[in-house]
């Protein structure tokens, strides 16, 4: 039987991916509705690498036109939940 990951699992997973891109960041203090770029000083290369990490970790397709949906933690959670169900 396959267990569907909870929001908490997804959140922890996404934070882990962010930590690999911005290892110096205090992710515990991350505001879920504020953009990663503003909080973590991500540039376009960092963001692309983050999107690639999400794609590989959650096996989801992320067209470039959907990038704006992945710029915050809550946005990522919503997309992952929607695309994996």
């Amino acid at each position, binding site marked *: 039987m396959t267990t569907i990951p909870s929001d908490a699992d997804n959140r922890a997973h996404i934070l882990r991916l962010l930590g690999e891109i911005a*290892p110096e960041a205090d992710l515990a203090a991350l505001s879920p509705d504020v953009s990663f770029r503003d909080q973590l000083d991500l540039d*376009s*290369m960092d963001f692309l*690498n983050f999107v690639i990490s999400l794609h590989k970790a959650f096996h989801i397709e992320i067209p470039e036109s959907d990038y704006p949906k992945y710029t915050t933690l809550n946005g990522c959670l919503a997309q992952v939940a929607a695309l994996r169900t």
Partner: protein
Amino acid sequence: MAEFVMPTLGADMTEGTLVQWKKQVGDRITKGEIIAEVDTEKAAIDVECHANGIIDQLLTKPGEKVPVGTVMAVIREEGPPATAPLQPQHVAPQPVLRQPIPTPAAKTVPLPPPSGRLRISPAARKLAAERGLDPTGLTGTGPEGAITLEDIARASTSPVDIATPAGTAERQARMRQTIAAAMARSKREIPHYYLSTTIDLSRALAWLTAENARRPVTERLLVSVLFIKAVALALKQVPELNALWKDGEAVRSERIHIGTAISLRQGGLVAPALHDADRAGLGDLMQHFQDLVKRARAGSLRSSELSDSTITVTSLGEQGVETVFGVIYPPQVALVGFGKVVERPWVATGLVIARPVVTASLSADHRVSDGHRGGLFLAELDRLLQEPQTL
């Protein structure tokens, strides 16, 4: 015999600390293989060897800080062991005192010199003089009893100086100092001139969007890669900008290695080279660029990547900057800057419409080129970005 010397990994580097040897005496090494890890003021770098052969001598100890040009190892071509001692042409290591370590007494049973003549390398003789040692009283452990640098170091009453690994704050401070030194030198020695042009990016961005839509996420392109490739191709039309200033004259580079300014997350920046950027396809260039950024931020760049750049490209658009007035990184003779992609009113066929544009700027060395040629370069850059499918 070939000598491996402390390389210069940029105009701002005067010395480096050996972190570790990646090869040992007796190991075979080929050109391009990593021989050592060296800590510079900016990062720890994997240093490549430029000779093929067998490691004959390792003269520098891990932890030692030595000036650029110091012979650190001797490599011999495969064959019988070397019979002559090291004959270095550079100065002996002059470590900066950080933390003394005990120096073990020389216990190796040496081979006696074959004759009454003292066999000692010039570097070892110099070090002995500096440390007040009479080398005639020493026994050498080198070939045929030759006195080596290691013998002098062991016999010296002054400790071998070891640099401690730099902490983040210390590294940041040192990096700031080295950047300051290079930039001050640039402004002191290079008569800069500056040009800029505004480039309509509507075609390039439309092409990029379509291209990325058909590419898997792992192979998508960033607009900065289009800029890099366009710069590389434009240099073919104005090759005097792709040169290095050496011994009072500009020496054009046959190959185009684009130094890409990469900001480090802890502060500071490096500008490693994308080799042969003019010949790489956009997909390969993007993969290489991604890898370079990743390794720059992880501190695992190669020496050739830090020393081979023939021009630098810097993009500051993500910081909101519209126009870059760059400082040339010597001995290069030009730097190309890109600002933020912004929508601006644009007049085309008598109509004012909104277009995405970017300001491209050129900082160039007036000893090497003039504004006319610089202007041609920017015009060519503009032309190339209007035909993104050709990049």
